[in-house]
């Protein structure tokens, strides 16, 4: 259970899509940044357009030991 890749570098304005390839639900959540995908079931996707440059750490709200980082250039 992990985000692949755990660290992703993108440019401001890019569209990023997370797809849950697991059979249990997951989320993409960064409370401070207001990032919340809601619960994503198996094979469900969620897309987010990054706006501002910077580093954004996120977790799976359901499995908080899952971590990811989005680096926006």
């Amino acid at each position, binding site marked *: 259970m992990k985000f692949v890749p755990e660290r992703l570098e993108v440019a401001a304005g890019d569209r990023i899509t997370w797809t849950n390839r697991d059979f*249990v*639900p997951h989320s993409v959540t960064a409370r401070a940044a207001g990032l919340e995908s809601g619960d994503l079931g198996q094979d469900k996707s969620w897309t987010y357009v990054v706006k501002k440059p910077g580093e954004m750490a996120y977790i799976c709200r*359901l499995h908080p030991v899952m971590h990811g980082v989005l680096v926006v250039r």
Partner: protein
Amino acid sequence: MNWKQVLPLILVAPALALAQGKGPSDPQIAGIVVTANQIDIDAGKIAKSKSKNKEVKDFAQQMITDHNAVNQQAGALAKKLGVTPEDSETSNSLKKGAADNIASLKTLKGAQFDKAYVEHEVAYHQAVLDAIDKLLVPSAQNAELKGLIIKVRPAIATHLDHAKHIRASLGKK
């Protein structure tokens, strides 16, 4: 830690180690998988209703959701393969250990309950991981059954990390 908290820890490991001498058959492995998941669902239901700690309740709900998802996959695969899950020494020991754990949890409340539940979840998921690596994967004959167990392993490892994280946070209170 009193004896009631220690007891479930002792019971889990031998239950899963019992059948290591002679590998279980595929129907027995299916039975162990279904039983092991159901046990954690049942413990989760008790924790969800008894605990007042949000972190513990959320974790318990997650165990119910995730282990139900695993059992749905296991059920679908067993049906596809025409395998009927069978009881074995291991699954029976698991059931006995689970009944003892639940009986013990029912006598506790508040912080004592949370600690006992989370401590048991740590030990249980560690024991399940060990069983996956040393017993279930090496013994599984059918490739799809073996594949399912390998696919489930990361979820168990994540649950173990999550339970350890909560144990540490409870320890600070």
